[in-house]
Structure formats: C-alpha cells, structure tokens
C-alpha cells in the first residue's frame, strides 16, 4: 500500500489511498501507516480519495487517532465524502474526531496549541 504524504510546516498530511478502506484493506493499512503516524505529532488524514469505509476501516482510523494521542500529538480529518461521513455519524464517532472541511483548516487545528 502506497501512501502519498505532504509536509506542511510541522504537520504531516497523509492521503489515504482509495477507493475503499474495508475489512479487506484495513489490516495492511493499519500496519503500514504506523511509521507515518509515529513520524509526526501533527497528523492530517486526507480522506478525499475514499468513497467507501466500513467498520474495519473505521477501526483503523480510530487506531491512528489513539496512536497520535499516545504520541502526544493531534490528528484531524479532512476531505471526507458524504457517505463516509454517514458512517461516522451512524456510530457516533464524529464527535471524537476533528473533522474539517478543508486541508488548511485541518493543518491549523493540528498546529494549534
């Protein structure tokens, strides 16, 4: 799995490869994103390439959040498509993530003190 990343200031923007993150792809995702998460305390996950997310994929995103928090950092999500957002709301986790409309907003949030 190849992650495209962009550095913006101290923040690391990780573009999640699409089109879907499900029970099939999430084990590999979880394994390979670990080093990237650990490489920064300001993580932005760009989800714009993702048009399907299931509970396993959501679990993987939650793992990223916990890992960043454990590292003393912050994580924000951006570029979320409507139906991916539906899942977040369905299982009520939209409240524990910083979900931003744009990449810039997300960078600002993870950079804030």
């Amino acid at each position, binding site marked *: 799995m190849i992650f495209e990343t962009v550095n913006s200031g101290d923040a690391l923007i990780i573009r999640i490869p699409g089109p879907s993150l*499900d029970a099939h792809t999430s084990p590999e995702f979880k394994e390979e994103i670990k080093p990237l998460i650990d490489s920064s305390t300001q993580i932005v996950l760009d989800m714009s390439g993702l048009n*399907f997310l*299931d*509970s396993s994929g959501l679990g993987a995103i939650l*793992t990223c959040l916990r890992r960043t928090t454990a590292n003393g950092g912050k994580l924000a999500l951006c570029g979320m498509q409507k139906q991916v957002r539906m*899942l977040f709301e369905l299982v*009520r*986790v939209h409240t524990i993530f910083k979900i931003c409309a744009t990449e810039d907003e997300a960078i600002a949030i993870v950079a804030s003190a």
Partner: protein
Amino acid sequence: MPVPSDSSINDIERLRTLQATGLMDSAASETYDRLVRLAAKILDAPVALVSLVDNERQFFKGCIGLPLDLARSRQTPIRQSFCRYVVESSKPLIVNDASLDPLLKDHPAHTELGVCAYAGFPIRTTDNEILGSFCVLDWKPRKWLPEQLDILEDLTQSVITEIELSLALREIRVVAAESMLNEARTHAVITSALDCIISTDESGTVLEFNPAAEATFGYKASYAIGKQMVDLIVPPAFRAAHLAGMERYLKSGKAHIIGNRIEIVAQKADGSIFPVELALTELEIPVRIFTAYMRDITERKSAAEEINRSSAMLQAIQKAQSQFILDLTGATAFEGLLASLLSMTGSESGFVAEVLHSEQRTPYLRTRAIAGEAWDDLCHGILGDGRQEYIDFGNQDNFLGAALNSGAPIISNDPKSDPRSGAHYGAQPKIENFLGIPFMHGTEMVGMVGMANRPDGYNVGLIDYLQPFLTTCGNLISAQRVREQRTAFEERLRIERDFKSAIFDTATALVLVLDSNGTVVDFNRSCEKMTGFTREEVTGVPVWATPFYPKEDREASHKYWTERTTNWPPAVHERWWISRNGSRHLTAWNTSIIRGEDGKPAFFVRCGLDITEQRRNEQALLQARHREIEIGAQIQQTLLMTKPPEVIAGFRTGAVMHASQKIDGDYIEFFNCGNQLLHFDFLIGDVMGKGATAALLGAASKGQFQRAIRRLIIQTSEFGRAPEPEEILAAVQQVMAPELIHLDSFITLNYARFHPGKRMLTLIDCGHTRTIHYRAQTEEWVYLQGNNLPLGVLEHETFVPLSVPINIGDIVLFYSDGVTEAVNSDGEFFGEEGLMHTVQAASHMPPQELTNLVFETVCEYTGTRQVSDDFTCVAFRFEQDTSYISEHRAAREFPATMDSLEEIRIFVTEFCQKEVGPLVEDTVHLMVLAVNEAITNIVRHAYGGRDGYHVQVIIEAAADEVIFYLHDGGLPFDPTGIPEPDFDGGKDGGFGLFIIQQCMDAVYYEHYDLGKNCLSMSRKIRPEDRVGPDRRPAVYDI
C-alpha cells in the same frame, strides 16, 4: 381537519349501543389498560386512551399518562374532545401539531388541556356504530410515523374485539339470568317429574345433555354432545326402528311418539338396558330441534314385572307338581326312580339321597327312597316300627362320607378289606359290593345314589351308563328345593302387594274413572285438590259436562263419547283442566280399560299428572336455548370469521365460510408479526362443542393470539426478529390451556406462517384436519400433518413446527371438519378422499373458484345447501402477482473472503438501483454498508478466516421493501446476540452489528439443521428513499 357533522354524535342507535356495552362509567379494567400501555409504549407517546364518546362527554375506559385530575375523573366534557371528530368523521384523525392547524389551534383540548399532537382511530362495532376513539396524544408537536400508526390501527382492532365480547357476554348473562330464574321456580318439578333432558337436531346429533342425563346414562355431556343419540342411548336392537321412525317423521310429518308420553327401553354407557318414560317435543325455529325428556322407571317397572314373572312361575310350579311330585316329599317319584335304578343295574339294594348341610356346614345325606335287604337291619334299627320319611347318614368315615367329601363316585367290590368302608359298614355282613355316585345340579352336589350287591360287582362303565338317570335325580332334588323357596317368595310377594296398594291409595297422581258412557264414577283426592271441585259434585256427570272440563273441548268430547263404537280413548293424552278458581292446569293422562264379563270396556281408569309447570319450564328452556344459539351465531359471524384479503404477500386467497345454525366454533384469522420481514401468519381453529360457549371460546382464543403476538413482538424485536410460531403457540397455550381444561373443552387448530421470501411454509398443526398442499413443480397433491395435541389437552406442551418448501404455483388448502364430515343420504362422510378427489382435478383454478368448487361438490354430495356443521375452506395460491415480482430477485455466490467485499458491494448497488430504484444514493449506501458488515462477520466469525468457503447473497425486492438473505455453511453465529459497541473510541471493533441494525429495519438470523446459517435483513423503501416525486397516498396528513 374533519368537518363536524351535527348528527352522528347524537345518533340514537349509536348511543344505545354505547349504553349496552355497559362500559360507560365502569371501573378501570386491566384488559383496556394493557392496550393503552402498549399503544403508549409502541408510539412512544406520553398519553394513550380508550375514549368512549357520548353526546355530552368523553369517558376513558382505559387511560395512561393523564394528569392527576383527569386520571381521577376519567372523563372530559365533549368540548374538550378531539375524539368526537373521529366519531363524527368515521375516520382516523392524525394531528402532528395542533398549533399549526387553523381549525384546532383554538380548540379547548389544545388551549385548555395542552394537547398538541393526536392520533386516533375509530372504535367501530360490527354494526358500524362508532363508539369512540383509540388514541395517543402528546403535549408537544410530533411527527407520527406511518408504521407506528399501522400498529395503532391494529391495536384498535383489539379494543374493538374486547368491546364486542363484552356486548355478547352481557346479552348471554341476561338470558342466563332469565333461564336460571325459570329453573329455580320449577326446580322441584324438573327434578322430581322429569329427569333427563336430551336435545338433538334433525340428524339426531346431540345438542344438549343435562346433568341428570349424565347421571342416568353414564356419559359426560362433553362426550355425548355431537354424537348421534341413537348410538348413545338406543339399544342396538331398536336402532333400525328408531332411525326408520325418525326418517318417516321427517318425510311425512307423521309421528307416533312426538307429543306423547310413552315408555320405551334405553341403554346406558355400560350396556345395561332399562325402561324409561319418554316425552318428546319438537321446536322448529330456526332449525328443528327435538327434545327428549326421559325418566328412569326401572323401579316402577321392575315391581310390575316381578308380579308377572312370579305368576308365571306359580303356574309352572303347579304344572310341575301335577307332573312330577304329587306329594310334598316327592316320595312317589323317588321311589319310582330307585326301583328303575335297581332293575337297571341288577343291584339288590339301594337308596336315593339328598345332600344337606348341618348348621356347621358339614354335608350329610338324607334319603328320599331306600330299598333292599342290605339296609334292612339298619333301617329297622333306626326306624323302629313306625315308618319314618327318611334316614340321615352323617358319618364321614365310610363309603358315603368319602364320596360326599370328594364328590367322586366310589366303587368297592370287596368292602370287607376296603379301608374306606369304615367300621359301620365293614361290620355289615350283607354288603358284598357297593357303588356310590354323587350327582350334581349345575355345579352343586345335590345328592347321591347308592347301590349294593350286584352279582357281577360294579365297574366304571356302569357310572357312565347311569348319567341320564343321575341328571333326572339332580333335577328332581332341585325342583323339590325350589318349591320350598317358592313358598317363602309367595309370602314376600303378598306383603309387597299390600304395600303397593297402600301406596296407590295415597298416591299424588290424579285418578279419574269413567264408565263406558264417559260418566264420572270416581274422582280421587288429588283431583279434588287440584280442581277445587269435590267428588260429590262431579260423580254421575258426563266428563264433558263437568265444571273442570274446558268449554272449547266439550263439543268434541261429547261427540266422541256418544258416537264412539269401537274407537277407545287414546291410551295417552293431554288435556287442560280448569279449577274452581279459574286457574288452568295442563294434565297428562294414561288410560287403562277394565272390561266387563262380556269383554266390552266397562270402565276407563285414567291416571294423570299435572304437568303445567313442567311444560312451562320446557318452553322456557327451549326459548333460552334458542336465544343462546342466536347469540352464538352472531358472535360467530362478527368475531370469528375474518374475511381474507384477496391477495396477501404474493398469495392469492380464496375462502368459503358458512356458519351452521348450531355454531361449531370454527374460526380463522390473519396475523402480521410486526411487518418485519415479508411473511404473514394464518390461523384456522375449531373449538370443540357448540353454541355460544364454543363461539366465545373461539373469540377468546383469537384474542389471546393477538395478545400473545403483540407481547412477543415487543420481546423479540429487541433481537431483531419476529416471534416464532411455536413461541406464539406456547404463549397462547399457557393462558388458554388451564381455562380449556377447566371448561372440559379443547381447540384443534393449525397455525401457518407463509414465508414467500424464504419459499417456506411453517405449520403448527394441533390436531386439526390435515392441510392439503399442491406442489406445482412435481404436480402432486400431498397432505401435511403435524403431531401436536389440540390446545387444552395438556397443560404444558412443546409445539413442534413442520416446515415445507413452497414454490410459485403451489396451493395450500385449509379446511374444517365440516367439509370432510359432511354426510350424504347413506350416512357416509364426504371424507378426506372426497376432498382430495375434488381438488386434484382443479390445480389450475384460482383459489376462490377452487373453494367454491369444494363447497358446490359437498352440497351436491349432501343434497342440501344448508350446512349442518360450520363449513370453512380457505385456499392460498403462491402467485407473486402484485407485491412480489419474480424478476426482482438476484442470487450470487461469492468466495467467503475479504477479497469479495468490493464485488459484493457492486452487486448490491447495481441491484438496488436497477431493480428497486432509482433510489437516493445515501439509501443504497446504507444497504451496501449493512451487507458489507454482515459479510465481514461471516468471513471472520462463521468461517474463522479459513479459505475455500462460499457465501450466497440473495436479494429480493418487494413493492416497498428490499430483503437480503446471506447464506453460509459456517459455524452457527448469531450476530443479533452481540452487545452494543463502545462509542467513545476506546475500542476499534464491535460496530458491525450496530451498523447493520442502524441501516436495516429488521434483522433475522436462523440456523438450519443442515448446517446452514441464514441472515435475513430487510429495509423498507420509503417515498423519501426514491429519486422522483413522492408517490405516497396522502392518508396521514390532514
């Protein structure tokens, strides 16, 4: 907003019906409170009411959630009522926000009571009277959901059923009270005069069997009712005559016994036959009912018979005396016999003796005849010079004693050295040899012959030769004994006769004696008492001219007595008598004729009874019975028979239902277990017994099914499934079985769940008639039969369902035993075979035509269109014509790996858009998500991540619903049993099932026997799920 019409709330009929329910101002009842609690819970409303509306106020028969003052008064004035609009418009009233409704925003219910949202359905009786509204309300604005309103409407039906029941019950109580009053008044008459009451219909089937009949005949009423009377109580020898008489009467109307009082014989359950006095009456509304009043007259009869028998015996004795025994001891006969014996055997000496018993029960012999030298010394020694009639031999230690004790013949050809000879005879030099033979009468040793001194000695052959002779001896001895008993019996009989005449003289019966011209010659005390006229006043007066004789009968009577030549008065007749004070008495008479020496009738002795009270009572009972039957018929038509919908879930239905006048308690019903998956339930039942009780039990059991289903839906919906038929049966059994057992009744029924989506029919057959199933694929007709016992046989039972596959074109036929037990003129049943034969030729017919054909065929078979039992026949054909379309189904198998997820998502998306849609993308996404999660669970849990397995995805589209079936062969894994996930992000798993439940309306898991898991999920497609205009009928928005 309905426009209030000014009349309907004041409608007299409506108010009268409302009053008749007895519910206005009645105490709160658990039944109604349960329904309002249920409504409040299901609709998540703070208040629910069973509101009965008269012309001044609304009264709450059931209520929950009202403020304290209203909860206490349980009523409001009509001005504060929304429910009145439901009554006036005859339509549901649904209000989401009264403040936005131009007509309701100023209504007192809103402004004073604060009612904001309201949903009410009319409580409509079967007579189409609207008594009130079953409603929920909220203090804040609400959007009532269509599926909530569906349930509210269903619950309203339960309220209506309850009200109908209370109406029916009240009426029955009124009748019962009246009839009890009658019964009490004439209790003495009914118990003393007429004991058994048995009613039958035209076919002889028992309808009524009273407690006295139970006691007399030894059958329980529950057993007897429904049986043929002729088989129960008519002795076999008279059955043919009984049936012929009945048939003749039904054809010609000529009765020999109807309306008369006669004596016949009847048979008890134990087979014994006894005499009865029988009175038979007939009532012909609405069907012919025959009622027999019977009284066991064994006592009376046997006394009379004893006199007859004994006089015959006396004659026989006289004959016997003259022929056999001319003197008291029978000496001549015995001496003749002994002479024959000696000459036949060539013996020198001999005797014939009788066996008697001493007081110590020791047998001894008493001679009836004795002769010969061998006994001479002995005889002379004992008898001396005077001739005695007999000699007793009591010694047990000689030949005679040995024979007496063993009962076996004794031969001794050398008595001197024979140890059995004993001292006495051993010393008797004159006995050379000896033969002793005891003889029997029946099994009793009654006597013995002894002989001695035959030149050639004795042998066994001689004993055989003498057998006929010995039999004669036995008979003679017995005859002698019988004569002695006879003397004692005659003495007893004489005493009895005296006793009987004493009874007769003081009898309470009316006794009237007329001479051959009809003139009164005697008029007993009872007649005087009843009429108030004295014997002196009426004797010497022609009977038709007596003051007690009714004026209207006088002319006929006069004519009869003056013109009569050979026509004697009828043996039995009834007549009204009028007493001095003008009261009328119905009297029943039995006439016997006393003939003069010329053989012509000299006197007519009439014995009678006053049967006025008894007849009045009979009439009252018949009326009460008739009314009960009418009420039962009403209940049946209103509560028991639900007309099936023409098409239900892809099944076209057909039904023929005819209630017989007797009401057998047949019923049918359809149930919808919560709209969860595409299935429906059908119930056909038959209560044992007839009349109002059976009908009420039927209605009660229907109500119990409704209640059980409602309750179970609430329990099982937590687990995302519908209640199973066996759960429903168990719940009903729990409530009904003790009741049924108590009432000595039971219900046969068949509970069917049609599951077109799964191509499955599940039956719980509790002793009902066998269901008939046509399998279109193989073109064969088969019977479906379960093996559960009828409801009410056992208190606890485990119900075993029977599941069969059904396919397009299949027919399922349910029927009551009124179909198969229809009887033709030869008394033969139409039978299962007849039914099967009829339908086999009709597999092409639409269900309604099929059931019509069954009815017509049965009518032809019985020769009448009047059904004698309830006739119920319901057919279902699996057609999928409207609600279910076969092209809207797709099935595909995928490898059970995570690799397949993407492909499955595409499969689901395409199906939804092409076959169901076009749908809003979000809706499709939710369904895709749910399937995705369910597949993930199967791969992960059912197969434990192992390779090489498959999962089948089947999608079906109904008119307003999409159903997904996921089949796998893995470990049984019920995802519906998993707890809710953790939402605070502490865990990253466990969301799967939660997501499925959020995305779908119903989830249902089953594990089949052959190792198959089936997860069914369905989602309703609502108008807002569709792309395009809202095609929903505007029903709910007012």
